[in-house]
């Protein structure tokens, strides 16, 4: 039987300089619109690096900045349809969400299903005054009526391609289109 291998092809869409500019712009929008009683929640896994970058931008511009992380695995609508592929990383929020403006932060907004799960989890954890959504990349393909309030950039890209964000503070930082091509 023939064994197929896959090669990951990555095409850079945006470099690190532009990425940093977008993060700065998003942080300004948050400061202008979200008052002073807000907290940031990064949606694991992709939203973690984005929320950390936003927190770095915002840390000297607000009196107190609460940052948490949520793992939506337990709230996903496909939990009975796919094998758990990574261990749960868990939700890590050590402050109250009551009456706060909760800003959900994700890397790529695509179908909207992850954010639906994230909203359900936030509501189970407390009663925030508002929930807002920040996404670095807004891509077409929504399956639920969910839209982001603050968008870094919008990309129209074929469903077969994945969008990957690398944001480690290195030279390779940027937004990439990735595609797994089959080779024999």
């Amino acid at each position, binding site marked *: 039987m023939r064994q197929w291998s896959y090669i990951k092809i990555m095409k850079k869409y945006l470099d690190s300089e532009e990425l940093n500019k977008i993060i700065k712009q998003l942080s300004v929008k948050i400061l202008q619109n979200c008052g002073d009683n807000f907290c940031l929640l990064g949606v694991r896994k992709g939203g973690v690096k984005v929320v950390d970058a936003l927190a770095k931008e915002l840390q000297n511009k607000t009196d107190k900045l609460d940052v948490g992380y949520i793992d939506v695995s337990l*709230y996903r609508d496909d939990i009975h349809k*796919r*094998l*758990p592929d990574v*261990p*749960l990383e868990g939700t890590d929020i050590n402050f109250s969400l009551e009456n706060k403006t909760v800003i959900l932060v994700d890397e790529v907004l695509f179908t909207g299903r992850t954010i639906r799960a994230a909203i359900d989890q936030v509501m189970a954890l407390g009663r925030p005054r508002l929930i807002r959504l920040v996404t670095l990349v807004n891509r077409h393909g929504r399956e639920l009526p969910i839209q982001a309030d603050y968008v870094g950039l919008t990309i129209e890209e074929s469903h077969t391609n994945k969008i990957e964000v690398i944001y480690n503070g290195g030279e390779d930082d940027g937004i990439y289109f990735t595609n797994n091509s089959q080779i024999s």
Partner: protein
Amino acid sequence: MKWTKKHLLGLKDLDRNELNMILDTAEGLKEVSTRSIKKVPALQGRTVALLFFEPSTRTSMSFQLAAQRLSADLIQFNKSGSSLSKGETLIDTASNIEAMGVDMVVVRHSCPGVPQILAKHLNCAIVNAGDGCHEHPTQGLLDIFTIREKLGTLEGVKVAIVGDIRHSRVARSNIFGLLKLGAKVTVVGPPTLIPKSIAKMGVEISYNLDETIKKVDVVNCLRIQMERQGRSNFPSLREYALLFGMNRDRLKKASKNLVVMHPGPINRGVEMTAEVADSKNSVILQQVSNGLACRMAVFYLLNGSRIDV
């Protein structure tokens, strides 16, 4: 890595990656029990049946709570008053329960191998909650999780398992799991309670707790299981306590950070004194809390494994 095991029958069947995946998942799930609303919808619409053919308090309650925290529906079977007393076979009873649309069966039985038999005959996922002297995988997992949480690693950690090794399913599951994760295990107890063949599992044997206690990071004191002993394996409980019980003097001889464990229920004054059980070295109550997280992790992972791949 994807979780692909359909059942949890014993830690012998799991490899190092699978063990770590359960422990890591349990770590992620521990937080759920600290919330004001301690419930997540992960197992909504799933049904878990608890089939306990042996008495149990903490394991049964822990499994119940784990299923409920994940929003599963729960049915419980009580041996007394069941159709088993009318002559129905174990497999017929289990098949009838499965026919009601059960997704997972948690089984405890005094006969080793019962979970394996059910796994062969039923389509649902089977979780072994203790089968005779064979294995008690979730107890093994929670013990290992507690050690990892306390010491940060299992690699090179020296663990003494003290007591009735011969009749202990907890010891066997601990040994399988700990060795795969890089810990070193010494079993300690009277020669009558340590089968010689246990050395083949890769553990050291000691008959002298006073010597062993100086060299280990963790001591896990097992309950003396009177119900599984056909004859007396030591002269008296008093003598057992004198030679193999954890007490203040032995605690003093050990490293000051010694982790003292017991799977419960404790016979205070036999396996350990009340002073040791309540000391700052004791993690017995943490073991109980961690048991809940580990059992939630098992349910969560096995739920995923019902998908055809």
